[in-house]
């Protein structure tokens, strides 16, 4: 069977894309990422300040932002260190808080399978809420993978501002205003919700997102917001899948033309 018609093998050559379309999509990616840069920078500053208050040296705070590079668990760890908790408790909490990355990695795996193993090693370390959100929307917008787009999303919009702000925060935190006063704490949820809207191009996505929200809030209130997010991310897609094809306004899988089931490298996931 010809390799380019197989669904289970990466294409040998990705379909060429109009450079003007690629440039426009990357421009949009940078614009979308601008708000997240502000968010990452604002909260990176606060992390630097929090770390300093918790007794971290600048090297330790910077090590957290470079090596762990996961905001929620960094804040939690700083609080626990300040509270005198032992390392085992902090490490276990970190694993739980960051478990949601498994979903992101799984969702991006089909797109990034054409990249070298070494590149994927690095891409994995840079995978955050923001990188996943921006890259998913960018790939879907293009209808194919764009590795440069992933680097822009992961490094440009998050890694650099987060680490730069950590350094500034830990060295000169006393001069920094509270991001809440400027309304910057709303940037993150607004960006996540807006990017979710960008991924909704069918009724299944709307159902998945709606059920995800309900689960997230309900389970978050019962247990913990982080558990709620993971539950919403797991249960929402199940609800979307459970929707009958007729209600979703799409033909049954067997009736779909082959092109709609194309390889992400060749023409995009079905959308």
């Amino acid at each position, binding site marked *: 069977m010809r390799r380019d018609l197989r*669904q*289970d093998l990466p294409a040998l050559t990705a379909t060429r894309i109009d450079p003007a379309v690629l440039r426009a999509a990357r421009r949009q990616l940078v*614009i*979308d990422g601008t708000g997240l840069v502000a968010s990452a920078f604002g909260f990176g500053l606060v992390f630097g300040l929090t770390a300093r208050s918790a007794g971290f040296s600048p*090297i*330790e705070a910077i*090590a957290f932002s470079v*090596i*762990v*590079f996961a905001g929620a*668990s960094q804040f939690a760890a700083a609080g626990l260190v300040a509270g005198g908790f032992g390392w085992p408790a902090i*490490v276990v909490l*970190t*694993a739980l808080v*960051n478990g*949601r*990355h*498994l*979903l992101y*990695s*799984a*969702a*991006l*795996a*089909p797109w990034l*399978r054409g990249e070298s*193993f070494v590149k*994927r090693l690095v891409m994995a370390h840079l*995978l955050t809420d923001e990188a996943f959100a921006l890259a998913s929307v960018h790939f879907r917008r293009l209808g194919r993978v764009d590795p440069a787009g992933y680097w822009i999303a992961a490094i440009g919009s998050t890694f650099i501002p987060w680490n730069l702000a950590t350094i500034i925060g830990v060295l000169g935190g006393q001069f920094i205003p509270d991001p809440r006063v*400027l*309304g910057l704490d*709303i*940037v993150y*949820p*607004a960006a996540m*919700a*807006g990017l979710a809207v*960008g*991924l909704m191009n069918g009724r299944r996505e709307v159902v*998945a*997102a709606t059920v*995800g*929200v309900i*689960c*997230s*809030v309900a389970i978050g*209130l019962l247990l913990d917001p982080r558990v*709620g*997010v993971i539950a*919403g*991310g797991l*249960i*929402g*897609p199940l609800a979307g*899948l459970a929707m009958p094809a007729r209600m979703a306004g799409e033909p049954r*899988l067997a009736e779909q033309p082959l092109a709609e*089931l194309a390889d992400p490298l060749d023409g995009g*996931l*079905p*959308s």
Partner: protein
Amino acid sequence: MSTGLVGLALLMALVTYPSRAIPLLTPGFDRLPPRALEYLRLVGPAVLASLAAAQIFVTPGTAGSGPALHVGVEWLAVGASVTLVAWRRNLLAGIVLAVVIVAGARALGLAA
């Protein structure tokens, strides 16, 4: 300058990296059946909407109390932002609108 907590950072990275890397690096993970790929395609909107909702509506618990429902100006700001994004397809404009609503409400003493 103290470097003792660098070890803690390494341990935290050690437990974080597998969740980021295993699906990306596992051979064959990309050759899932169409139904599984369809599920993964729906993870994006579901998890991003869940993240936003948890941030807006749920206040994390403290040592003495569990998580609490929070209904403030934030949901209004994000609702307006999402409407603008869906209408104009402009994320940055949506974020700016949300910031203006929240910062404005707080400045006027209408929100905490």
